[in-house]
């Protein structure tokens, strides 16, 4: 039941963000400061998730060398920066993770 409510309200709020300015267009303009803040949302949210998944995979900080996710993330970041290819980034990251986990 909880999950269904999340889906329903998550769906409604997401739709409203998409509808917002198409409906309000002639009445309200986004102020410049808000526009600048909104631009940062993806980097802010996604970086937080990346950091937790990489440095604290099971909810506990793990900065030791046997955390293969750190190395995998570094390799993947290099690939992402060079190629901007989503598929290749995921592939290299997973292969790095598997190889280092297997070696350790």
């Amino acid at each position, binding site marked *: 039941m909880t999950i269904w409510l999340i889906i329903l309200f998550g769906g409604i*709020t*997401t739709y409203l963000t998409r509808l917002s*300015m198409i409906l309000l267009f002639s009445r309200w303009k986004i102020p410049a*400061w808000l526009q600048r803040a*909104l631009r940062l949302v993806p980097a802010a*949210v996604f970086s937080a998730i990346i950091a937790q998944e990489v440095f604290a995979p099971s909810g506990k900080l793990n900065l030791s060398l046997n955390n293969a996710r750190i190395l995998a993330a570094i390799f993947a970041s290099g690939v992402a920066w060079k190629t901007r290819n989503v598929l290749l980034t995921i592939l290299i990251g997973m292969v790095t993770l598997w190889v280092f986990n297997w070696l350790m």
Partner: protein
Amino acid sequence: MTQAIPNSRPFIEEFWRGFRAELPLLLGVMPFGMIYGVLALTAGISPAQAQAMSALVFAGSSQFIATQLIAVNAPIYLTVFTILVVNLRHILYSASIAPYLQHLPPIWKVFLPYLLTDEAYAVTIAEFQKHSEVSPTAAHGFFLGAGLTLWGSWQASTAIGVFLGTVVPQNWSLDFTLALTFIAIVVPTLKDRAIVTAAVVASLVAVLAVGLPYKLSLIVAAFCALLAGYFIGER
């Protein structure tokens, strides 16, 4: 100046042009949808719910984050609020595409935003901006074609992922594909000071606050990052 191209193409032709423009992007979207389907099941979401979320929320990144919060039994309001924060960027898309839809009847203005995803927005705004003046005729056919193409592939890839989720062994660490997907999205955007600041602050706070219940650390980290990025980028 670019020459004004009178847009006299019929609606159905615009639709197919939108469809074709969207196709290359599916290469990134389909694996994303499949990974979502797999992760949803590992978070304890049922196949029907996973599919319903793809249909109703229809926003990949926020669906991923929702699965994380559902996995730790976070309260409903917190999960919905987190989905909202992740999807705030759509307000920008909505604002930038709005001028091109103003001439349409209300039914279009209410339906088309449902299809306003990152990927449909990307190809549609590129198409709209190619024409130096706003076409009053059938340009929304392009948006509809691109949007429905993405919609179909998102639903299909979710279904495939949900199916695979019951087959793929747990020890493949497939949950790490979430971090990798976001790395692929964020790393190429780290080009100006405000964004880099936001990314660094978000990472630090998220790691330091990881012990907070219900993944509250994500929201706390995101807001610290927005503030830091905003004020440091200002100077």
